[in-house]
């Protein structure tokens, strides 16, 4: 199995992004710390460099720094039951320790509760720590498509915050600038959707373990030309691999879908476990959460309001059942794995019901594994193997 050439491109891209953030900040460009579900297009249009604390926490976990940082936050009274991304990131802010060398402090924070209720507390603490303004986008939770009233409410907030963000920013947000940024976001998101779609081929040239890593630019650079260029390149490489019949998993024996955030502290061993059993993780609900459909350069505010209200985690169980069912059919999966993530109640509560309904509809079995996205103390590789190996064997896959 050959490694993706784009792994090296990704490393370079991320490194450049970190350097650009530092350099831009030195040159006087403002920095915005934003949640992954925030309408980053607004801050980009105002000339900010965005930084994603969730991404940062994932990097801390992957580099085995998360436990110490989380413990620092716990020492300040923040319960171990709280989101590990929040604890890790706050620990990093308060200690100054980061695998990125140095964090560039924000000039503002932008938060949307479309991914969970935790971020508003986490980012409020961030804003207080750095003494910068916090902009909060309230996106009503719903089942089914957002109502006109919901979209109007979100749009109204976006329109109201645009001049305020402009005031802190480097330049004024104009409809024209917002249109251009939105167009780039839309283009990048379309390319990303095509990248993910390549895994529907047999054999899959790419798995969700790759997607978990290669999603970084769509999270942290959407709205930029660099992001578009990155996914053009990645898509081209994956199409070439597909054309050659290259497989991410040699002798692919089973295909499964993943639900929830990656288990960063066990990313590599888990990837190896899947490979050893010839199981291809062909799609997931996490990386595809960014396939935002509604972005509309002709009416950017309404498009942003729709897109950021319609994010996966802002929906109830019924929608998530639909998404998983669709993925199982589209990617020809024989099973699905639900990561019951201690740190993410929004994502995890309801999974037992999701498993029951999806299996009932598709006849495809699912397994729930208990872990955490960033806290290694809540991740046991032994437990994961005990749950996954029999599941893989039941799918006809084995070492």
């Amino acid at each position, binding site marked *: 199995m050959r490694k993706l050439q784009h792994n090296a491109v990704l490393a370079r891209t991320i490194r450049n992004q970190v350097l650009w953030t530092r350099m831009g900040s030195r040159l006087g460009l403002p920095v915005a710390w934003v949640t992954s579900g925030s309408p980053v297009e607004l801050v980009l249009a105002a000339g900010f460099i965005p930084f994603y604390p969730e991404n940062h926490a994932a990097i801390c976990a992957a580099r085995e720094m998360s436990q110490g940082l989380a413990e620092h936050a716990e020492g300040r*009274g923040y319960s171990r*039951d709280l989101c590990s991304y929040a604890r890790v990131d706050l620990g990093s802010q308060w200690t100054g320790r980061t695998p990125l060398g140095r964090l560039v402090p924000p000039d503002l924070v932008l938060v949307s509760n479309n991914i969970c*209720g*935790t971020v508003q507390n986490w980012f409020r603490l961030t804003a207080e720590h750095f003494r910068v303004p916090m902009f909060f986008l309230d996106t*009503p939770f719903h*089942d089914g498509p957002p109502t006109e009233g919901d979209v109007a409410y979100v749009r109204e907030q976006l329109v109201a915050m645009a001049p305020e963000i402009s005031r802190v920013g480097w330049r004024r947000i104009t409809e024209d600038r917002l249109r251009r940024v939105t167009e780039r976001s839309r283009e990048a998101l379309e390319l990303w959707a095509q990248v993910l779609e390549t895994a529907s081929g047999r054999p899959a040239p790419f798995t969700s373990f790759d997607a978990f890593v290669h999603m970084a630019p769509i999270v942290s650079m959407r709205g930029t030309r660099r992001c578009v260029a990155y996914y053009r390149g990645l898509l081209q490489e994956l199409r070439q691999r597909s054309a050659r019949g290259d497989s991410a998993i040699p002798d692919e024996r089973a295909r499964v879908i993943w639900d929830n955030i990656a288990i960063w502290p066990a990313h590599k061993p888990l990837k190896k476990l899947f490979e050893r059993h010839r199981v291809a993780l062909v799609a997931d609900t996490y990386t595809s959460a960014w396939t935002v459909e509604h972005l509309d350069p002709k009416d950017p505010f309404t498009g942003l309001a729709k897109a950021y209200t319609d994010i996966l985690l802002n929906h109830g*169980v019924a929608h998530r059942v639909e998404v998983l069912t669709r993925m199982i059919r589209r990617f020809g999966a024989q099973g699905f794995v639900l990561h019951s993530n201690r740190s993410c109640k929004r994502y995890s509560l309801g999974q*037992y*019901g999701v498993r029951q309904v999806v299996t009932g509809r598709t006849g495809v079995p699912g397994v729930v594994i208990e872990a955490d996205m960033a806290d290694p103390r809540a991740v046991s590789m032994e437990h994961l193997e005990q749950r996954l190996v029999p599941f893989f064997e039941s799918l006809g896959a084995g070492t």
Partner: protein
Amino acid sequence: MGWERLLEVARDPVAEARARMDREGRPLAVALSSYVPMEILDAFGLCAVRWGPVAEDFPRADGVMQAYACSFVRSALEALLSGDLPAGLVATASGCDGITAVPGMLSVARPDLATAHLRLPIRVDGAAARTQAGRALVAFCEEIRERLGVPLDLTRLDRSARDRQEVRKRILACFEGLAAGSFSAVPAYGAALAAQAMDPAEWLAAFPAEPILPEAGGVPVILSGESVPSLEVIEDLESLGLRVVADDTNTATREASRRVALEAQDLVQSIASSLVDRPWHSPERLVPDRPTAVATRARDAGARAAILLHQKFCDPCAFEAPGLASALREAGIPSLVLELDRQKRLTGGQRTRVQTLVESLP
């Protein structure tokens, strides 16, 4: 009648809910948030109760949700799945991720059970939030109408809104009396807990004119937290030498402080606005400087310590606790977090911690 009746209901609200259903012959509506306006449920001809008690074991709830959800949500699910609470409707409101997940979980575990979710804004500032709350409440009413096939009775709404407002005013007066020494905490919380389960007109008829005065002594404290799980917890705190002089809980002051403009032309919008404009909010709403406001209230009431009564796995409380403790400390008020999990009363360890707090006070 009188205190005896209110305290009896407060001690066993589930029994009262079942008895009311039998007595009134109306379907039971269970609200799982202090942000669900009970007057709306009354106006649909439902026997409306707010969930509050905590169970000690939840085998059925554990089958549909993970153990890292708070006991409040798991207890409510247990009661609904076991049939202890034979609900015809479950009403939730946006807020924490645990409660938000309930309708989805019930849609699988109890597809026969009607649910309605009030999608209130999380931000509570300005006209946009009020407008959105109005839209959300109209949609919530529409959802109930569709699920149950009954219309909203505006005459009943008017009556219930008045009765419930009067209930809230009297509860708030009880709690304002704590600091002045003109009211005792057990009956005050008893009145608040009973109001969650009783018909408002019956509650008003039962509410006695004479207060129960507190006994002399006791360390004055403020009690903060989401939901008071039982009257016994208050009795436990009092037995350890504490005297609650100020409250910051959903069970009592936060909800009781809500005021509806009853003479407004559009009563539904007025109720919606009251949810956004209530003076005291839960930490899951975006309220600037809530810890400072709570600390000021504690100081004004003469509290010498604070008890933060939290449910384990309650994210909004856990996030707020360090900041709240810090604001209280700056006001010269030490605090103690008591994290309750699957329990109605304080554990031995928690009692010891309270005693240590009391002994350490100057």
